[in-house]
């Protein structure tokens, strides 16, 4: 008799739940040592509903198809000098932030979902984590392959993994993910799958992918499309995972709420760098940070938390602060980069009149009053040949590790300083949100590797700026400083010059 073909459902059952068994000669808690210490109670792993009934063989088939399309576009871009199609070389700074700050996180996500795929006691959730782990590795690889084309022509991309581990502003995304991967499996799921990939994901992907589309970067757009169906799978996993935790035991609710509060704030602080990129680095703007926050968090997030209210979950603590600050944070972060352009592997520049007008229009309440005067003063200094640099190293927040440039919610001229004491030492934070996170787990955050403090401890190559920049692998005079006067600008101008018509139009 010919073998009967299995139905999709049967096949899925064999590929997932069929892989699990009840251990007989080892104790379950020895096999899954991380399953209980966070206090999460799961009574029935069988109740996990897989949001995607995707089997491994189908997964390979879909992914292979997407890869074929992506690499065809990358090849075509390389053969046709696709880098000449971007709006302006300043756009590349968005790509630099992406490869330096985001791509290494994809790899970290790959590693930690592989860890979850081993350590979650439920087979259904393990399989989902396994697929996400492979997705994240694919994203990391395809991003590297896509952006490597730009690395042939532009600066600051050449050693991104090394920079990710060392540079002051890259310690922001790095420490964010280190915090998540050093947490337990359920906190990680809530942090990355729910708070980041579900609640805040559009605020990461829209600025980069729409930014790429608006600015002629077809390679990054294609990568974005290639990742999109994976991302929607990850989002659904995040929401289902949180629902599952909430439904399993009422005692899980306050724990999950605490993680939502923490990871909303951590994600929001991390996104201030992305918002800065959006408002300042894209030659052709997509929307302002403030508009993006309104549509992707205030509206979408509002509906989500209204839906989760039936489990006893409320909106993240300090969401009101994020709303109140939305007209300020990107300007404050741009000021950080302008202050320290000498030590960054991205370029900055003086904001021109057209850009000032856009910022006034998008930020009518805040920009002209609080930030424009600062930019005009800087521009004036630069025109006199005295470009403003901050030669002191900034005070950093112990938790988010961003220079402490954020101001009090009701007073945009006064920096928000918060401090905690732990075992006789002071720990400074930039906000009530970061202070709460520190105060909850001071033993964890007292270990933070703060780039400025590490320089003063003598752990970063030396005591002078050039020594530290060497240790960062910043190619000095090319990767750092302003765009104006950079080798990148000179090259771009040469290219554009060559593309203007040179044949004189014959006189009639």
């Amino acid at each position, binding site marked *: 008799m010919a073998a009967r073909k299995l139905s999709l459902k049967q096949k899925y059952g064999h590929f997932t739940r069929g892989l699990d068994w009840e251990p007989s000669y080892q104790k379950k808690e020895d096999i899954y040592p991380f399953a209980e210490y966070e206090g999460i109670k799961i009574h029935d792993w069988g109740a996990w509903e897989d949001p995607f009934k995707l089997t491994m063989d189908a997964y390979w088939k879909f992914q292979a198809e997407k890869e074929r399309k992506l690499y065809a576009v990358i090849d075509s871009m390389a053969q046709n000098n696709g880098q000449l199609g971007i709006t302006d070389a300043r756009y590349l700074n968005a790509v630099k932030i992406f490869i330096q700050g985001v791509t290494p996180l994809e790899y970290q996500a790959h590693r930690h979902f592989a860890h979850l795929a081993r350590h979650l006691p439920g087979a259904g959730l393990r399989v989902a984590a396994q697929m996400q782990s492979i997705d994240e590795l694919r994203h990391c690889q395809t991003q590297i392959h896509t952006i490597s084309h730009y690395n042939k022509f532009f600066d600051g991309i050449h050693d991104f993994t090394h920079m990710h581990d060392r540079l002051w502003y890259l310690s922001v995304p790095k420490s964010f993910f280190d915090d998540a991967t050093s947490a337990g499996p359920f906190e990680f799921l809530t942090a990355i799958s729910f708070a980041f990939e579900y609640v805040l994901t559009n605020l990461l992907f829209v600025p980069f992918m729409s930014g790429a589309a608006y600015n002629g970067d077809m390679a990054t757009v294609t990568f974005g499309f290639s990742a999109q169906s994976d991302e929607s799978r990850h989002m659904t996993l995040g929401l289902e995972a949180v629902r599952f935790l909430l439904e399993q035991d009422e005692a899980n609710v306050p724990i999950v709420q605490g993680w939502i509060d923490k990871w909303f704030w951590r994600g929001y602080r991390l996104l201030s760098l992305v918002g800065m990129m959006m408002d300042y680095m894209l030659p052709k703007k997509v929307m302002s940070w403030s508009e993006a926050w309104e549509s992707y968090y205030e509206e979408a997030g509002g509906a989500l938390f209204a839906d989760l209210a039936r489990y006893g979950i409320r909106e993240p603590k300090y969401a009101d602060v994020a709303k109140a600050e939305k007209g300020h944070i990107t300007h404050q972060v741009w000021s950080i980069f302008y202050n320290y352009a000498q030590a960054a592997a991205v370029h900055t520049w003086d904001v021109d009149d057209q850009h000032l007008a856009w910022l006034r229009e998008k930020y009518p309440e805040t920009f002209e009053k609080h930030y424009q005067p600062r930019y005009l003063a800087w521009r004036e200094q630069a025109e006199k040949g005295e470009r403003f640099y901050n030669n002191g190293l*900034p005070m950093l927040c112990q938790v988010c590790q961003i220079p402490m440039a954020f101001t009090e919610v009701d007073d945009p001229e006064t920096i928000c300083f918060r401090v905690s004491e732990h075992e006789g030492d002071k720990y400074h934070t930039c906000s009530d949100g970061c202070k709460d996170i520190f105060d909850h787990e001071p033993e964890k955050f007292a270990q933070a590797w703060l780039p400025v*403090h590490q320089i003063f*401890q003598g752990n970063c190559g030396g005591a002078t700026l050039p020594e530290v920049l060497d240790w960062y692998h910043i190619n000095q005079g090319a990767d750092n400083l302003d765009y104006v006067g950079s080798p990148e600008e000179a090259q771009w101008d040469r290219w554009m010059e060559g593309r203007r018509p040179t044949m004189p139009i014959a006189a009639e």
Partner: protein
Amino acid sequence: MAVISLNPGYTGPVRDRIENFHGAQLVYVHWEGHLNFCAAITLPLPADTPFGALTAEILSSLYQADPAWASVDLSAARWTLDGQDWAPDAARSIGEQGVGHKSLIRFWTAPVCNA
């Protein structure tokens, strides 16, 4: 948060202990009203640094990037140390006057510049 997911008694290395700074301590200084300096500045200073040396040498070299610094009268400035009003004496060391590891010094100069 209701549950702390650290094992009881867990401790880790405190990375910024004063012993790690080779005889110096960290001091943060912020010139209020001048947000062209985006954040407070971190300085590694021995506790016996005279306050006068901090202002005359170190702060001057850092803040002179702002043209307004030249006309600042520091003798009329208002100071706080770790959130408390503070009347520092230029001749005495910062350590003697209560500046500890990771202390925050803020100061306000007149006239307040709006830029």
